[in-house]
């Protein structure tokens, strides 16, 4: 799709992620044994034939930059197009040209910072993709649909029930008419009032590039900043906004609980098939580790184990990332253990998320609760 470019929002709201985002953006949280959250959105763009992707960051982006490198693992290290990192304050100048405050109250303000990048492109369409979704999707069909409907904007939604959120951000809900056109946009309604299955947006939006430029300008000059409130909701009647239903697996990572659940979803064969065994691969940074070694006496059930691990203990219903060492007599259940951790002899973990490089010494017992998993910060020693 030479006529389409991607813009990835890699700085999602992360207050609900606790220590997992202390030193990194939500999009670079390790996920699923060997990936980072951003790999899914980025691979989707690449797999849809998009060769030019801008990545909008805001803060804590060192870890993300380290992960993405030159973009070669996603085939985005290119002469034409490729990957462009767009950190705040990157455009220079003052006022409008400065791209706002760098704080980004909303996506339109973030896009203001990328307006030069957008303007210089000759793409017809832009995919605005939030990097907090775990899904595997071919955008080609959506762009076709967008063009067929002669839409100004096409939003992608899936059928889901609203869930209670700590911060009240339940999501954007679309009312869609028979033709697929959006007739109403509701933002963060209460699950107490809106019940049953709704058309819940997954923050993947197709828009014409010139229209996007105009909207960025309009929003900036009126001190408006929200893509959902100030564009999709406010302009629902005067722009042709269409909806496209995505029917595959989709998990939005916006809290420790959703992160935990989405990881555990990977233990389902159906979901693994949908995410990993399509024609569309999920790419990630390569670590060159040898395959995992399972030693005498280990017991691993219903779990994912990545390369570079040495397993001597017991692992059940868990996700074990690359380079983890599980010593004899250690028991890990319903937990997520990120890369290069060491779980020593006799230690028990249950409903615990262990961030990178953690050492849990002998005979420690750490128990979280299913709805409220315990989280250990990167590099800690227990």
């Amino acid at each position, binding site marked *: 799709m030479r006529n389409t470019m991607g813009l990835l929002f890699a700085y999602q709201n992360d207050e609900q992620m606790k220590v997992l985002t202390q030193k990194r953006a939500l999009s670079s949280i390790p996920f*699923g*044994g*060997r990936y980072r959250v951003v790999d899914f959105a980025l691979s989707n763009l690449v797999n849809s034939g998009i060769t030019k992707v801008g990545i909008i960051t805001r803060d804590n982006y060192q870890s993300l930059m380290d992960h993405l490198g030159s973009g*070669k693992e996603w085939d985005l290290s290119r002469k034409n197009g490729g990957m462009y990192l767009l950190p705040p304050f990157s455009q220079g100048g003052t006022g409008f040209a400065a791209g706002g405050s760098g704080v980004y109250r909303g996506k339109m303000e973030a896009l203001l910072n990328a307006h030069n990048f957008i303007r210089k492109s000759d793409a017809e369409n832009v995919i605005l993709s939030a990097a907090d979704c775990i899904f595997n999707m071919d955008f080609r069909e959506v762009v076709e649909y967008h063009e067929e409907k002669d839409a100004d904007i096409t939003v992608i939604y899936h059928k889901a029930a609203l869930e209670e959120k700590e911060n009240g951000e339940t999501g954007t809900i679309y009312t869609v008419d028979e033709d697929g056109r959006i007739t109403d946009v509701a933002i963060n309604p209460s699950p107490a009032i809106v019940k049953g299955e709704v058309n819940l947006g997954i923050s993947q939006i197709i828009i014409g590039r010139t229209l996007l430029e105009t909207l960025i300008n309009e929003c900036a000059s009126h001190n408006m900043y929200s893509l959902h409130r100030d564009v999709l909701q406010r302009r629902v009647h005067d722009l042709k906004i269409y909806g496209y239903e995505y029917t595959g697996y989709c998990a939005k990572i916006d809290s420790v609980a959703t992160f935990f659940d989405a990881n555990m979803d*990977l*233990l389902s*064969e159906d979901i*693994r098939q949908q*995410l*990993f065994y399509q024609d569309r*691969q*999920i*790419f*990630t940074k*390569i670590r*060159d*580790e*040898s*395959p*995992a*070694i*399972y*030693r*005498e*006496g*280990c*017991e*691993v*059930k*219903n*779990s*994912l*184990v*990545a*390369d*570079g691990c040495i397993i001597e203990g017991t*692992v059940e219903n868990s*996700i*074990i990332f690359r*380079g983890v060492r599980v010593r004899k007599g250690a028991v890990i259940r319903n937990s997520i253990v990120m890369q290069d951790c060491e779980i020593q002899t006799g230690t028990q973990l249950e409903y615990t998320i262990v961030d990178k490089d953690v050492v849990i010494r002998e005979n420690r017992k750490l128990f979280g609760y299913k709805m409220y998993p315990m989280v250990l910060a990167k590099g800690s020693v227990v």
Partner: protein
Amino acid sequence: MRTKKRTVAMLLAGGQGSRLGVLTKKVAKPAIPFGGKYRIIDFPLSNCVNSGIDTVGVLTQYMPLDLNAYIGNGQPWDLDRNDGGVSVLPPYSRGANDEWYKGTANAIYQNMHFIERYDPEYVVILSGDHIYKMDYNAMIEYHEEKGAAATIAALNVTLEEATRFGILNTTDDNKVYEFEEKPAHPKSTKASMGVYVFTWKKLKQYQEADEADPNSSNDFGKNIIPNMLNAGEALYTYEFAGYWKDVGTLQSLWDANMELLLEDSPIKLNDNSWKIYARNPNEPPVYNGPDSKIINSMVCEGSVIEGTVEHSVIFYGVKIGKGAVVKDSVILPNTVIEDGAVVEYSITGQEVHIGKNARVGASEDVAKAFLAPGKMTGYLAVLADETQIGDGIVVKPGEMLDQNRL
């Protein structure tokens, strides 16, 4: 104008490896999968990069497609460079009597212009059949120090083993005075590892002379080295004490895979100071099913294990069904072993399909009691790439199959 390089490595990767039987039916020996995710050629290539050698010519001849695709632009080994990097050098038609590579030395001779482009001081000659970690740079420094024309890496073997190798007889300071190919009565136990450092000017001179000799078989061991010795050139051995394994036979390939499972494995694949790089299969982590049991094994990403795996090396993309048992085996990539099948003491090729309740091989002890060993396989059962074994079918120990059995 290209940058001058101090060292160019030439990797001889054209051999068929006929002693590996059906495993090399479609791929050259250096492209044979090893150790769960690697190929044999990853070892010399990674050694080059880790030794600071960034210009490598890979000479192919037999079944080069897989090898070419695998090496690609050399990116997995950091060998995609502006200057140098990895170049695949296939045989090409030249002059009136175009021909294949006649011998190892002829292969280098035919690619002389590749070496000349970099105007190197030293040329390292490597082969793609061995599993080892070696710092070639230390060897070059030794070569330089000795002022040698050629330095040959040597491994101390037992006297019995010495009859199977090229043996280097040296004086006390490692100066070679005689080279014997597979001697019946070895005088020394210094075996050539097939790793040579040559001063390029000297090698070029002897190669040109060797090419002019119509009776020469154009081989390093048979011609170049003896000729250099006869002419009184300074040849030295460089002693290598680490792990080195020739995986030229089915049994040694199986052994080398199994040695990776030892708690104190002689070859550390994850040692950050000397990593072995491979082209990445990009697969999700291994899924271990609720009834799976894996012990004393290595399992690569992308595999789904529902059955039992014991003392085995499982490559990427392998599926082992419920109730299936894999024991003492090497299962190459993308193989499917259906529910209830039993695979024991076997090497199965890439993309093999083993049907429900089929039985491939048997334990070595059991097989020994009932059967004579296979010619190349011993008591191993070996399946070629893409072999299909039907439900309930039996493949006996020692059998080597390159056709479906349905």
